């Protein structure tokens, strides 16, 4: 069963959270950010081409125009492939682990899997980020030898940066699955 709800990111952009329950101990949460808008794309392209035309009018060198076209194309490809993240998803499988996927606008997907033995907890943390204090969801990792200490912190949803109401929804969904770890017998 899938349900989708609309929220706002930390910057005010609309994002959509989709929750799917695959089984009793497996849940997928996907956050979709806003798509690349045609108006911002045309604004950036016109700005670059106007600047190039101004340079051409001053310097009478036609290479400036072809260089501007080239730069616009290459810049757009690089932006879509390396920068613009369309969807970030979290797949929590109770006995197995947590998988974090980022899908870029060009179709590229980058995936990280963390096994359940290394996961200590999924928490909402507050930290200072660029002159603001933001809430963000993160996975606390533990060393297998030292279950009391936190060895690493993996922040999630870095590019869509949801606000606290969305984070609380995701947190509750994850905690429902993580709580089953304590009640279920350890199988090793």
């Amino acid at each position, binding site marked *: 069963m899938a349900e989708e709800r609309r929220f706002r990111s930390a910057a005010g952009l609309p994002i959509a959270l989709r929750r799917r329950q695959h089984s009793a101990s497996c849940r997928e949460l996907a956050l979709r950010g806003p798509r690349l808008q045609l108006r911002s794309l045309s604004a950036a392209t016109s700005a670059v081409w106007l600047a190039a035309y101004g340079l051409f009018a001053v310097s009478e060198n036609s290479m400036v125009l072809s260089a501007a076209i080239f730069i616009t194309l290459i810049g757009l490809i690089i932006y879509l492939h390396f920068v613009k993240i369309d969807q970030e998803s979290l797949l929590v499988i109770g006995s197995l682990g947590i998988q974090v996927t980022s899908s870029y606008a060009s179709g590229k997907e980058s995936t990280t899997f963390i096994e359940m033995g290394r996961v200590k907890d999924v*928490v*909402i943390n507050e*930290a200072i980020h660029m002159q603001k204090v933001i809430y963000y969801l993160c996975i606390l990792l533990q060393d297998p030898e030292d279950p009391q200490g*936190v*060895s690493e*912190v993996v922040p999630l949803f870095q590019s869509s940066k949801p606000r606290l109401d969305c984070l609380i929804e995701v*947190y509750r969904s994850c905690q429902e699955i993580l709580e089953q770890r304590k009640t279920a017998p350890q199988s090793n």
Partner: protein
Amino acid sequence: ENSPAPLPERAIYGFALFLGSWFGFILYLIWAYIPESWLFSLGLTYWPQKYWAVALPVYLLVAVGIGYILLFGINMMSTAPLNSTHTITDNFAKKQQQKKFQEEAIPALRDIPISEVNRMFFLPER
């Protein structure tokens, strides 16, 4: 002991500093404004170039301006990144001792782990 009250020694230090700073200021004005030929005729030939009378204050003011920007940048650089454990705990919290729980007494002050805090804030009361 150490007290901020006025003392005779402090009055003397203050007056010596006051006289010294006035002397330094008058000396700086003499060096900057009196023409070189007059200083030479007095026998003072080995004073620094007058260029420095303008350059040093300018250096100081630019340094103060850059200091604002530098301090801002140092602050930003020493802020812990989002993926560091310093946002969650530190050495004092790791080494704290757990006091035994006593009935009817106020619990001792301690650093509560972030998982517990999250459960209290965000999970509905059972």
